[in-house]
């Protein structure tokens, strides 16, 4: 008995001792792990900038942005010190040989608030074998205007056909918190595998939100505050379900494009994928009445990427006339293949159509930018919150510019009737899928400039002269996250508030409801004047586009 009690004592004491030992080791690691952040007393000055990842040199940043943590890429150096100075405030951070500079969030916020409207000078010191050196300092320009604090996006492997685990996430831009809005297929089940499509909010608020689920449990998910409803917009007269959505800013209405989309893979081309529509129309959906109608509908014209003007009186969209590319009298079954053979000649112009908010009717569409005449193609028009600028992506051809290296951000100044590229924000790689901030001073877009494949959100300041400044990559707590993450950021959307609906509610809606079928209202489509503007010379049958029986 005595031995038994002794044993118990020994075990209990051993466990306590082990716990204490582990605690000491942990504390030691925490305190010993902090790199030295003292400015070296002696150093040489070099005339070049330090190589940073991501490149945050000389960028304009919002005063409410999370710390711009970065990595100094210098394999010779064994330690680094970074000093940030602005308006009497100073912040010093040390880094080990890995060069990772992590800025304290509280100190960073204080520095930014102090430096609003001014510069922050950043000096980087590196400990080389021959001693400390100081690289040429650079500046961070702190704007007066905040950026909307929430950025939502889809994380998905870049492009390709199959899908499995992907999700919509929301990132708080003022810190590093990322929360899932909805994630699919954490556990793979063939019968539940589904894809999540583009999401959209009304007026930068999460009060109203929409996204589409494809394949198993498919349907359009309409969210109002914390409640989600699934609806089936697809009708025998509608090509597919709603694809690219745009909430009306004043009314609870969503304009959708409905697209028959296919993709092909290049065998020897820097642009790996070509995504093409062989048919697309525009729809108007009323979530309150669960009614859907066509806005524009034609076989010869591909209308897509709707976006409302802030006053809600215009619906902007892009449109291609495929009579330039294919003979529509040939069988529909081969249309997709015939378009693929002429993929680099399918081009889209920027159009808009007036909307009467009283009776919810549309007027005659009109061309806003004729890109085709310059041998270019426009996609993704987004009107600035003040209604003055239309921001769009311009590329050499096609509509899926997120895979076109030629794609750049352009604006149309509606006041001065001029179009120009946002030179400082653009890169030599893909720059596309953009969104304005609610104050119109920031644009967020996805770019593949880092490696040509994985898109990352970039933020650029849009000044009062209508010019964008150099864009910077979404800051991450671990700057290497941009390198290590094997997914793309897709469809960035800014909001003023956090998403209210829970992932559980969305899962319930997606998995447990079939979705009520929307009532289709026939005869609402507008006769598109472009139909008579045939490049082939043949005037198409204006009524054919309205026929609900017309085969697709």
């Amino acid at each position: 008995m005595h031995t038994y009690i002794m044993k118990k004592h020994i075990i209990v004491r051993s466990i306590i001792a082990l716990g204490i030992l582990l605690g000491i080791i942990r504390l030691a690691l925490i305190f010993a792990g902090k790199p030295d952040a003292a400015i070296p007393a002696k150093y040489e000055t070099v005339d070049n900038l330090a190589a940073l990842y991501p490149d945050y040199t000389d960028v304009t940043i919002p005063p409410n942005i999370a710390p711009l943590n970065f990595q100094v890429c210098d394999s010779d150096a064994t330690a680094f010190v970074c000093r940030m100075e602005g308006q009497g405030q100073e912040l010093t951070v040390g880094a080990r040989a890995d060069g990772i500079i992590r800025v304290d969030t509280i100190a960073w916020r204080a520095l930014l608030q102090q430096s609003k409207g001014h510069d922050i000078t950043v000096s980087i010191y590196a400990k080389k074998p021959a001693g400390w050196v100081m690289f040429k300092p650079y500046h961070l320009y702190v704007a007066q205007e905040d950026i909307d604090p929430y950025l939502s996006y889809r994380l998905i492997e870049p492009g390709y056909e199959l899908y499995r685990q992907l999700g919509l996430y929301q990132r708080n831009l003022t810190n590093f918190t990322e929360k899932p809005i909805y994630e699919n297929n954490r556990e793979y089940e063939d019968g539940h595998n589904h894809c999540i499509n583009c999401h959209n909010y009304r007026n930068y608020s999460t009060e109203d939100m929409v996204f589409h689920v494809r394949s198993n449990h498919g349907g359009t998910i309409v969210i109002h505050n914390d409640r989600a409803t699934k609806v089936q917009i697809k009708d025998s007269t509608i090509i597919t379900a709603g694809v690219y959505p745009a909430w009306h800013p004043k009314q609870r209405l969503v304009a959708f494009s409905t697209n028959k989309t296919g993709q092909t893979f290049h065998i020897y081309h820097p642009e790996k994928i070509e995504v093409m529509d062989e048919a697309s129309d525009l729809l108007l959906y009323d979530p309150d009445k669960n009614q859907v109608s066509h806005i524009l509908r034609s076989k010869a014209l591909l209308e897509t990427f709707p976006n409302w003007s802030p006053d809600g009186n215009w619906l902007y969209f892009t449109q291609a006339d495929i009579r330039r590319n294919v003979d529509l009298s040939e069988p529909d079954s081969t249309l997709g293949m015939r378009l693929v053979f002429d993929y680099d000649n399918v081009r889209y112009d920027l159009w808009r159509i007036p909307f009467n908010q009283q009776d919810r009717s549309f007027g005659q569409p009109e061309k806003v930018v004729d890109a085709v005449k310059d041998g270019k193609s426009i996609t993704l028009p987004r009107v600035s919150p003040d209604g003055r600028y239309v921001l769009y992506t311009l590329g050499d051809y096609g509509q899926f510019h997120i895979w076109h290296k030629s794609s750049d951000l352009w604006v149309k100044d509606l006041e001065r009737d001029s179009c120009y590229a946002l030179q400082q924000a653009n890169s030599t790689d893909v720059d596309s899928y953009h969104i304005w901030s609610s104050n119109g001073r920031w644009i967020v877009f996805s770019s593949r400039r880092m490696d040509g494949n994985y898109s990352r959100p970039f933020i650029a300041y849009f000044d009062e002269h209508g010019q964008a400044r150099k864009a910077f990559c979404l800051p991450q707590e671990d700057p290497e996250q941009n390198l290590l993450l094997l997914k793309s950021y897709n469809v960035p959307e800014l909001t003023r508030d956090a998403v209210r609906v829970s992932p559980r509610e969305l899962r319930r809606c997606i998995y447990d409801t079939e979705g009520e079928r929307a009532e289709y209202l026939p005869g609402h489509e507008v006769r598109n004047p472009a139909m008579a503007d045939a490049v082939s010379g043949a005037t198409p049958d204006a009524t054919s586009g309205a026929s609900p029986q017309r085969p697709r």
Partner: protein
Amino acid sequence: MSKQKNNPKKAPTPNVREARPEGKEGVVQRRALLLPVIPLFFLAVWLWSAVYFGHVFRICREYSFWVKNPSEMQFVLSRSFGSLWYVGRMLLQLFRYPWLGGLLMAFLLSMGSWLMGYAMRLRPRWRWIQYAPALAYMAVLTYHGLDIFFEAETGRILGIPFLTVLVLSIWAVIIRSFSRKPAPAIVGIPRDESPWQNRVQILVLAVGMMCVVGYNEWRRAEVRVVCRLMDAQYEQDWETIQRVARDNADMSNRPMAAYYAMALVHTDQVATRVYDIRLDYDTLHIHGMDWHSNNASAMYIPEGSYHAGLLQTSYHQCMEQMVMTGPTVRLLQLMTKCALMRSEWELARKYLRVLRDVPFEGSFCQRYGAMLNKPDLVNADAEMAKIRLTEPIHDSFENQYQQPTFMGYNLALVEGRSMNALYNSLAVCLYTKVMPDFMARLNPIRGTTPPDNFADGILLCRNKQEGIEKGFTGLNLREPRLQAYMKTIQPYLKDRPRYARELFPRFKGYYPYYYFFGNLKATRKSQTGSNRSSSSGVN
């Protein structure tokens, strides 16, 4: 004392044993008969996992991915039992060196067995039961064969034994803390067992191991061969691939044929040695993550495209697999090589950075990291230089070709970068028995003595196109054999599927045999067989 001797239920203490009355001679004799079962089991498991199944577990590791950073492992950690699979994947890294991984596997299974016996308080006469779970686990791994890594959670392989040992250890500690039950010997001679009790355990182990190995040889013989070939392919050991494939020429499956073809491409034998192995493609016991049977095309198609010069297609196929299974070492390595060959330096740097955190991948990162921004080094690499010769000249779309693309592309090739490209194209035409396309591509090699398979193909085409053989030398040397062959096979032509296997040993390596009797199951349908239409679309 005699009571204790006659009552095996009560475990003797060391003191009691020393006082045994049999005398010195009796004790020596009895000790000589007892064998240390746990160490023997450890050795057997080590031999099984390191030597017999070493290549299989090494490929399991290649099909896995583990880094310390939890955010990179989110695709595993966020799933049910994710932490366990994370640990399992970590342990699996040791199979980079099968002898090392084998030690761990042997430790986990033998320790688990010992703990099982202790925790269950098994008496010596029932102690053989303690080995049953470990043997059953080995049997399960054997039964699943290629499925243990193909689109599967590789963390299970060592995660389950790890959890078992962990649970049993805690259980054993609790028992040990609250009872005075002595532990049976783990390393030395089990003195509490009688000779027959000891022999029963040895017998159970021997029979169990024989069943495991026997079943593998009987029903899953392809597993070790395919993994051996894959392993050699990673090492760019083309000679070993050929040797192993030819040694198992009678075995036939698509991954084996694909790796063999890659080796032939790299050793310039694609026109002469393709038909040294049987190409009838037996059904493989392999399933994807949707648990539907498939022909394992995903195992070889990315590599097939890469070695056929279709780098973009290979990258695409790697990405599709990565979407479905998450990253694997194998995919990341191949994507790195594709990116390097396409001068996508930043993309290659990204993959190398990811791989840098994977244990034991330092040499790969060092070798290929040196090529960043240095196209000269890329082109100087033997493997890459060979692949470069067959890269396409013009762009086109994958869906213009029959699947798999590396076959369809070569079948449709009209303009190549080198003679290697032409040879690959001719070889694919012969393999697919599309003789009009074969004949249409012969002009550039007219005036030469064609390689054996091409020569036989030309002779077979004479009936289809008169004069096709003109301009070639050396055909007359092949003619008598063809005539003799045609005469020999006449009785067998009525029922070719029935006689194909019987005739293979006689005509191994001979193209006309393949033309009439080989690959008869092939249809015009896609050879990939992987149907994922429900989960594909524009993303």
